[in-house]
C-alpha cells in the first residue's frame, strides 16, 4: 500500500516536472529578447506581412491560449517546423534520440563497470596503490573537459578509427554483420569518452558510500555471525552503499546528459546533442526547443526510474 503510493507520487512528480519544463521552455522562447516573438518579424516587412506572420504563429492570441495550443501540439508530437530545413522537428528529434541511445548506453555500461570494479577495489585496498591510482584517475578525469578528451582521442586514433558520424558512407551493400561492425567502430570513441568522463563521479560516490557503510554497526554483527568476508562486503556493505549511490546517480544523469551533448557535437554523432549544437549555430529555435524538451524529459524519466529502484532497494521508503 505504502509502496504504491510512493510509486504514484513519483510518477506524478516526474510528469509535473516535465510539464513545468515545457512551460519554462515556452516562456523562454517567447519572452526573451531574442525569442520567437521578435524573430517572426522580417526586418523591413510590410505591416500586412507582420500581421500575417503574427497570425500564422498565433501571436495575436492571448498568451495563455498560446501556451495551451503549444502544449496540445506537443502532446501530439508536434514540435513545429525546423527553420533550417523546413521539415517537422518531431520526426527529426525522434530519429536523433534513437541515435543517442546506443552511444550513451554503451558509455554508461563502461562507466558503471569501471566504477564498481575500481570503487570496490579502492575501498578494499584502502590507502594502497589501487586506491590512490583509481582515485587519482577519477579526480583527473573529473576535471577533463569532454570536448578536449574527444579531440585527444580523435587525434590519437586519427589513422585507425573514424572520427565522426555513425556510418561509413562508402560502404556498399554491407551485410548485417559488416554494418554492425561499422557502427561499433564509429561508436567506440564517443562511448569511451562518455564512459570515462562519467566514470569519475560514479566511482568517487561509490567509494565514499561503501566506506560509510562499512563503518556501520551491522557490519560488526555480520562478521560476528562468522560470515565470510565476501558475503559481508557484498551482501551487507555494498547492498547498503547502493542506497546513497542511487540517490546521487539520478542527479549525475543530468551531468551526463551535458557530457553527451558535447561529445556528440565533437564526434558529429547524429544524436540529440549534435542536433542541439547545430540548432544553436543555425538559430533554429523550434529544433532547439524540441531537443531541449526531449533531453529534459529523458533525464527526468531516468531520475524517475532511479527513484523507483531506490524505493525497491530501501524497505524504509514509504513517503
Amino acid at each position: 500500500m505504502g509502496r504504491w503510493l510512493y510509486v504514484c507520487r513519483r510518477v506524478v512528480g516526474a510528469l509535473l516536472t516535465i510539464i513545468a519544463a515545457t512551460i519554462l521552455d515556452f516562456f523562454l522562447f517567447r519572452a526573451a529578447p531574442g525569442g520567437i516573438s521578435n524573430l517572426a518579424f522580417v526586418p523591413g516587412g510590410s505591416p500586412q506581412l507582420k500581421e500575417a506572420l503574427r497570425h500564422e504563429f498565433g501571436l495575436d492570441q492571448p498568451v495563455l491560449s498560446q501556451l495551451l495550443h503549444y502544449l496540445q501540439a506537443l502532446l501530439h508530437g508536434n514540435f513545429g517546423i525546423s527553420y533550417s530545413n523546413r521539415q517537422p522537428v518531431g520526426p527529426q528529434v525522434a530519429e536523433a534520440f534513437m541515435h543517442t541511445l546506443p552511444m550513451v548506453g554503451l558509455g554508461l555500461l563502461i562507466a558503471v563497470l569501471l566504477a564498481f570494479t575500481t570503487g570496490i577495489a579502492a575501498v578494499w585496498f584502502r590507502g594502497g596503490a589501487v586506491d590512490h591510482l583509481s582515485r587519482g584517475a577519477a579526480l583527473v578525469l573529473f576535471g577533463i573537459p569532454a570536448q578536449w578528451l574527444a579531440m585527444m582521442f580523435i587525434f590519437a586514433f586519427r589513422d585507425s578509427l573514424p572520427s565522426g558520424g555513425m556510418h561509413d558512407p562508402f560502404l556498399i551493400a554491407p551485410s548485417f554483420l559488416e554494418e554492425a561492425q561499422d557502427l561499433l567502430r564509429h561508436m567506440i570513441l564517443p562511448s569511451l569518452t562518455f564512459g570515462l568522463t562519467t566514470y569519475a563521479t560514479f566511482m568517487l560516490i561509490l567509494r565514499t558510500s561503501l566506506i560509510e557503510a562499512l563503518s556501520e554497526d551491522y557490519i560488526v554483527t555480520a562478521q560476528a555471525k562468522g560470515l565470510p568476508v565476501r558475503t559481508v562486503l557484498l551482501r551487507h556493505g555494498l547492498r547498503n552503499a547502493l542506497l546513497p549511490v542511487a540517490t546521487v546517480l539520478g542527479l549525475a544523469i543530468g551531468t551526463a546528459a551535458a557530457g553527451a551533448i558535447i561529445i556528440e557535437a565533437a564526434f558529429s554523432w547524429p544524436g540529440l546533442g549534435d542536433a542541439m549544437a547545430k540548432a544553436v549555430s543555425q538559430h533554429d529555435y523550434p529544433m532547439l526547443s524540441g531537443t531541449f524538451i526531449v533531453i529534459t524529459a529523458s533525464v527526468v524519466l531516468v531520475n524517475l526510474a532511479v527513484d523507483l529502484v531506490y524505493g525497491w532497494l530501501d524497505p524504509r521508503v514509504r513517503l
Partner: protein
Amino acid sequence: MNPPLLEVAGLDVFYAPLDEEPRRHIVRDVSFSVSTGQRLGLVGESGAGKSTTLYALLGLLPGNAEISGRIAFEGVDVLAAGHSGLVALRGHGIALVTQSAMNALNPVHRIGRQLREAMPSGGRGRAARRARVDELLDRVGLPPSVARRYPHELSGGMRQRVAIAIALASEPKLLLADEATTALDTVVQARVVELLHELCTELDLAIVFASHHLALVAQLCDTLATMYAGRIVELGPTEQIRDEPQHPYTRLLFEATPDLGERKEHLRSIPGAPPPLSDVLPGCSFEPRCPRAVEGCRVRNPAVEPASHGGEVACLRPERVEAHG
C-alpha cells in the same frame, strides 16, 4: 578439573596512530577466565576498555589494532594461529550482542534472512532452517511473524531480542554482550536481562556482560570485574565485591551509584578524570584520583594479587588490608 571455557591471559591491545594522534594502549594486561554457565560482568566508565576487550576476543578490532597475549577457548590457544584463529571463533562457540542501536541490524534485509544467515551452514534443509528461525524467535519471546519484518518496523526492545536470537543461532557456548541493554527503557531492559539470565541457566550459556550500569551488572552476573583505564583492577564474586570492595576505585564507583531509595548524602563523585590512554604511566593509573594513594603508587604499577574476598585486586593499598591494620 576441566579447563575453563575461555581463558584470557595478559591481553594487550594497542591502536596504532591513524592520524596525528599518539599510539594508544587501550587494553592493558587483562586476564580473566569464564567457565560454562558463568556470568561475568565487566563494569567501568567510558574508555575503560570493556568493549575493546570483548571485540578483541572475536578479532573484530579495526586494522590498526595490535593484539598480544593468550586467548584460549576450550583449552585451545586461538591466538597462536594469529588473527585467523580468532576469526574461526565467530559463529562457532562465541557470539556477540552489541548495543541495541538501530544500526546493529542490517536495515535492508528481513529479520528471517538475517537469522538464517547466522546459522551454521550445511546439514539442514530449507524447511528445517525456517523451522529453526521460528524456534529462535520463540526462544527470545517473539512471534514467528517477526521473521518477515524489517528492522525499522520493530521497537527497540524487539530489535534487541532479534539481536540475541541472531547470537543464539550458531548455538554458542559463550555470549559476549556489549552494553546490550543500554539504549533500552527500564522496563524493557529488565525483560531483556531476565531473558539473558534465563538463557544462561537453561542453555548452560556463559556470558560476559560489559556495561557501565553497575546495579544492572550486579543483578545479572555472579562474577564482577572492574575495569579502569584498560586494566581489570578488581575481580571476584559479585556479592563479596559489593559488600567489601578492596580497590578504592571499585568502592568509589559503588559510592557514586545511587540505589533506589537512597538519599544524596550517601553519594560521592570521584574528582578528576581518567588518564589519556596514550600515556605511559609508571605507577597505578588511578593514583591521581585515589584518596588512598601514597608515594609508592606513583612509581610502582601494582600487580594483580589474590584478595581476601576470593578474587583478585591490583592495588598497593587495598581497602581490606587497611581495615585490618
